[in-house]
């Protein structure tokens, strides 16, 4: 019983979105009536598309942050990875990814793989295309996270394969479990546990960020640290990025895009909660930044720019799951914890020999999981499942322990899924096409070895020389 009611709830948003699809595919939107319903429909389309544009633009943000955090000799490569994973991902999502994510549910596990193939037939419908576009830019966000973590050493060709596989399979399947009517959100078990709803993830702390960040963890472990990252004694040596200006620009672009990411996830412009979502989002980002700056200040004696940006991103990741369901003060708490997680995460991983160039594992992986937990804690029972109607989402602190358990189950499942598929994929790639360039190519830089260009052909460079010596 309950299962169906949730299922219906989840479909409600979709139905509002797709007024004409109940009959037949409507590729032109001719079914949009010139009446109140039609107008509200238009508002939804306008809002969702604008938000999707902003999320798309986050690709530029990632590209800038990552490019700025690598050395001059690897810049063009990082840019190309960021650009091509989106391009290839678009094709993969059109062919199969979206079907697995949002196609009609098959046993709670995945969507019907052929249902949206190339957006042919029934799926050639404005409402469905709206959702496809929105889901595409989300998928692309998740995929691009790995790029920065393993920068400065992977084979370009292998990275392309990775990005196609994740967009086509790994992301959509887990995404289906949460957003596509799959078991984590809609199975009887989970719905009973949560008290009317299963595991939730408003805009994707888990689906997008934790998944991407944990894949990055697997990737970093499989590929190993960069030449020069550690001394013989295993002491980490910092390898500063080449351009703080574009790191900061990228940070601002990501923050800008994140408003679309979170507030667009209502999939409706008629949900006034979008205003609140922006408030919690901006607070968590700001507080995350402040926290990380203070921690870096204490540790190194001066406030650090890179961690400031990381802290802000961590706060944003942390609020993403709960942005519509938590209060402003809770957003502050979430941001503080996120800032702490980012800093200690970065320092811990570095010590443990995991060489994550941009801090993606801490920012997206650890904080993504934290976001799911935080939602289970702080949901204040004022907003329902993507609707103002009940059942209202309520967390542990407001008395719903079951939902907190549901969220913890999600955390565990996600961690296992992400690391499992991640290790399988990256070991597989390592054993077959190879995952890492040769040491000579790495020393020379991937711009020359993989693309035979310089990112800044006229710039005279110097090496950042360290007193301690690294293992070659």
């Amino acid at each position, binding site marked *: 019983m309950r299962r169906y009611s949730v299922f219906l709830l989840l479909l409600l948003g979709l139905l509002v979105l797709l007024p004409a699809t109940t009959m037949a595919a409507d590729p032109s939107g001719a079914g949009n009536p010139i009446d109140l319903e039609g107008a509200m429909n238009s508002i939804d389309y306008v809002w969702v598309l604008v938000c999707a544009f902003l999320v798309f633009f986050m690709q530029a943000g990632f590209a800038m942050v990552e490019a700025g955090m690598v050395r001059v000799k690897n810049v063009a490569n990082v840019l190309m990875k960021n650009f091509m994973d989106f391009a290839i991902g678009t094709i993969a999502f059109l062919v199969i990814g979206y079907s697995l994510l949002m196609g009609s549910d098959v046993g709670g596990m995945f969507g019907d793989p052929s249902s949206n193939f190339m957006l042919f037939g029934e799926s050639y419908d404005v409402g469905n295309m709206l959702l496809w576009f929105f889901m595409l830019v989300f998928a692309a966000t998740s995929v691009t996270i790995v790029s920065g973590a393993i920068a400065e050493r992977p084979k370009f060709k292998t990275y392309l394969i990775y990005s196609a596989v994740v967009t086509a399979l790994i992301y959509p399947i887990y995404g289906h479990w949460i957003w596509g009517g799959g078991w984590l959100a809609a199975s009887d078990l989970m719905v009973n546990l949560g008290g009317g709803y299963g595991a939730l993830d408003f805009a994707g702390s888990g689906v997008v960020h934790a998944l991407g960040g944990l894949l990055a963890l697997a990737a970093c472990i499989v590929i190993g640290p960069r030449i020069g990252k550690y001394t013989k004694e295993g002491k*980490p040596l*910092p390898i*500063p990025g080449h351009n703080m200006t574009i790191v900061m620009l990228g940070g601002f672009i990501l923050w800008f895009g994140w408003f679309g990411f979170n507030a667009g996830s209502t999939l409706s412009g008629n949900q006034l909660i979008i205003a609140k979502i922006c408030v919690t989002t901006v607070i968590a980002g700001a507080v995350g930044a402040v926290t990380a700056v203070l921690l870096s200040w204490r540790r*190194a004696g001066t406030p*650090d720019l890179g961690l400031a940006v*990381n802290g802000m991103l961590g706060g944003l990741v942390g609020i993403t799951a709960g942005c519509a369901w938590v209060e402003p003060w809770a957003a502050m708490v979430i941001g503080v914890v996120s800032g702490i997680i980012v800093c200690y995460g970065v320092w811990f991983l570095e010590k443990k020999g995991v060489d994550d160039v941009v801090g993606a594992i801490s920012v997206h992986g650890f904080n993504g999981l934290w976001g799911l937990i935080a939602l289970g804690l702080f949901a204040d029972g004022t907003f329902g499942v993507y609707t103002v109607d009940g059942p209202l989402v309520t967390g542990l602190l407001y008395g719903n322990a079951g939902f907190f358990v549901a969220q913890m189950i999600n955390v565990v499942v996600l961690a296992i899924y992400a690391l499992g598929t991640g290790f399988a994929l990256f070991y597989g790639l390592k054993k077959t096409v190879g995952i890492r360039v040769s040491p000579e190519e790495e020393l020379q830089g991937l711009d020359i070895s993989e693309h035979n260009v310089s990112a800044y052909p006229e710039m005279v460079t110097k*090496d950042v*020389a360290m007193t*301690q010596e690294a293992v070659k």
Partner: protein
Amino acid sequence: MKMIQAIVRHEKLGDVKSALTEIGVVGLNVTEIQGRGVQKGQTRQWRGAVYDVDLLPKIKLEVVVDAGIADITVDTIQKAAFTGNIGDGKIFVWNVEEVIRVRTNERGKTAI
């Protein structure tokens, strides 16, 4: 003729240049280099991790002068570049056998 190669601090370049102008030494050229000396380096931080760098940016100045004014040139540079702290730099002098002015193909002292 002598080549006087001086390694000085970035912030002293202006003073050295003016001091040289005052004693009539106009021609010179300048590059940024990375240097290591008694001053063994400094610490920097990156994302909260502190590390030591052992090369610091310095300015390299090259002036070719007539042997007769080499000493005063060296003294002038030394005075202008002086702060008394570690890292003030070095001056190296060696013999230059020939100087040619490209514009006129003049050789020797008049070409300086």
